[in-house]
């Protein structure tokens, strides 16, 4: 078993706990054991874009210190937003030793952060550590016939220097879904924003975004949307309009677990769809 330090983030312990459970089971099937950081705090979910807001880096850097304290130099996230904030803060302090030393001085209750912790996302892990071919060879319940739309959203691909893949033409999500046997539904909204945190104060704006995203996925043949972001997941489900196509939404980890024959904890709509589509599922049911 490969031990991989793991930063869950709040959503994985609450709203997205099925994603976490499924991803853990799936990664175990791939020979990776997720080792949760013994202590961790909220990443802040949105990276501060202001120059005078050093305090907003304290949370992410404190988590990087926890990784360092484990004697490790990399940490995995399942959540796209955690990935964005942690990875951006890691880059920020790497590029600005002066401000890192101020943050270290402020956190007098921790060891100094020395830099060098790499933040990985599940997609990057599947591509770079597991490998697409290896992944495909471990599939026991291929998602044959399932037309899945890979919805990256924002923080997986933007900004450019931080993204798991090229923001204009990313392919890692598609290749992972293909490795799992799914058919990929290409759609033009795959890297477009769902409205994110506007869901709190301006849900109508988000509803408009979600309507377009879902309609585009459906128009391009998708019967399922896949995400790794709990905020996208919430918006896609809670803010979708009452009319128009209702595509089920599943987390990347859930499809992964399904295909690898692990406990997938799928939401009922997605599970019914996969059950009804894949031949392997029919076989599995008979058993």
């Amino acid at each position: 078993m490969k031990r991989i330090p793991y930063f869950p983030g709040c959503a994985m312990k609450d709203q997205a706990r099925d994603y976490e459970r499924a991803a853990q089971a799936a990664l175990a099937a791939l020979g990776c054991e997720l080792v949760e950081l013994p202590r961790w705090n909220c990443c802040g979910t949105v990276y501060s874009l202001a120059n005078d807001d050093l305090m907003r880096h304290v949370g992410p850097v404190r988590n990087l210190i926890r990784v360092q304290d484990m004697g490790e130099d990399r940490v995995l996230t399942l959540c796209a937003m955690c990935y964005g904030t942690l990875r951006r803060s890691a880059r920020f302090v790497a590029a600005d030793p002066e401000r890192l030393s101020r943050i270290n001085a402020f956190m007098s209750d921790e060891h100094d952060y020395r830099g060098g912790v790499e933040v990985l996302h599940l997609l990057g892990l599947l591509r770079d550590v597991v490998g697409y071919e290896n992944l495909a060879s471990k599939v026991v319940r291929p998602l044959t016939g399932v037309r899945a739309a890979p919805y990256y959203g924002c923080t997986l691909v933007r900004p450019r220097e931080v993204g798991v893949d090229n923001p204009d033409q990313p392919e890692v999500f598609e290749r992972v879904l293909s490795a799992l046997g799914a058919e990929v539904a290409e759609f033009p909204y795959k890297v477009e924003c769902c409205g994110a945190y506007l869901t709190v104060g301006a849900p109508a704006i988000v509803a408009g975004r979600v309507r377009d995203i879902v309609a585009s996925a459906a128009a391009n043949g998708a019967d399922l949307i896949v995400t790794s972001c709990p905020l996208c997941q919430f918006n896609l489900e809670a803010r979708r309009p009452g009319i128009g196509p209702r595509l089920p939404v599943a987390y990347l980890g859930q499809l992964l677990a399904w295909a690898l024959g692990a406990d997938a904890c799928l939401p009922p709509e997605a599970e019914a769809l996969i059950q009804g589509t894949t031949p392997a599922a029919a076989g599995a049911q008979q058993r």
Partner: protein
Amino acid sequence: MLTVYIMGKGYRVPEGLTIMKAMEYAGYRLVRGCGCRGGYCGACATVYRLPGDYRLYADLACQTTVQDGMYIAQLPSTPAERADYQLSQVAPRGEALLALYPELARCVACNTCTRSCPQKLEVMDAVQAALRGDIRQVAELTFDCVQCGLCAMRCPAEIAHYHVWQLARRLCGAYLTPRAQHLARRVAEVESGAFDAELDRLMGMGKDELAKAYQARDIEP
């Protein structure tokens, strides 16, 4: 004798006093910011600095000994609103804490609250647990909170921690802790009259006899 500065004014006070006693020695009559005098009630929240030290310390006045040159200010009350709820209407689910105290989401993980807590609780960890909906963990981490409010006064995210702790402990006690079976058994015993004779005997005792019986009582280990 030492010199201390209470609310900006210098006083000479004897060594070894607590901040609370030193204030009374200096002539303050404490009608607020003073309760149990034993470190339990949390009424005597106080902040202070020491000469040559930038740090702003926070502690209980009844539990902290004065030091020479100490700058002292009391914080007898923390302005903070306690959410209005009926415990029986609140489900013990993760989102309960966040629904009533959404400002929990503002925590920046600076750990200032932990550094301010006179009870040496892991306050930030409790905020983080509350944020991720782990009511039981919050209740455990904050069991010893005395509601002094010092964390809340120092928090840059303006969270009113101790009200959240109280809600978490209530939810934990009401819903998440297994009911004590022996309690129900004992109540039934009491109701069935099993102790009536013994109680009557106690009620009939004179003061001296009662005192003797008290001294000789069995003490649970």
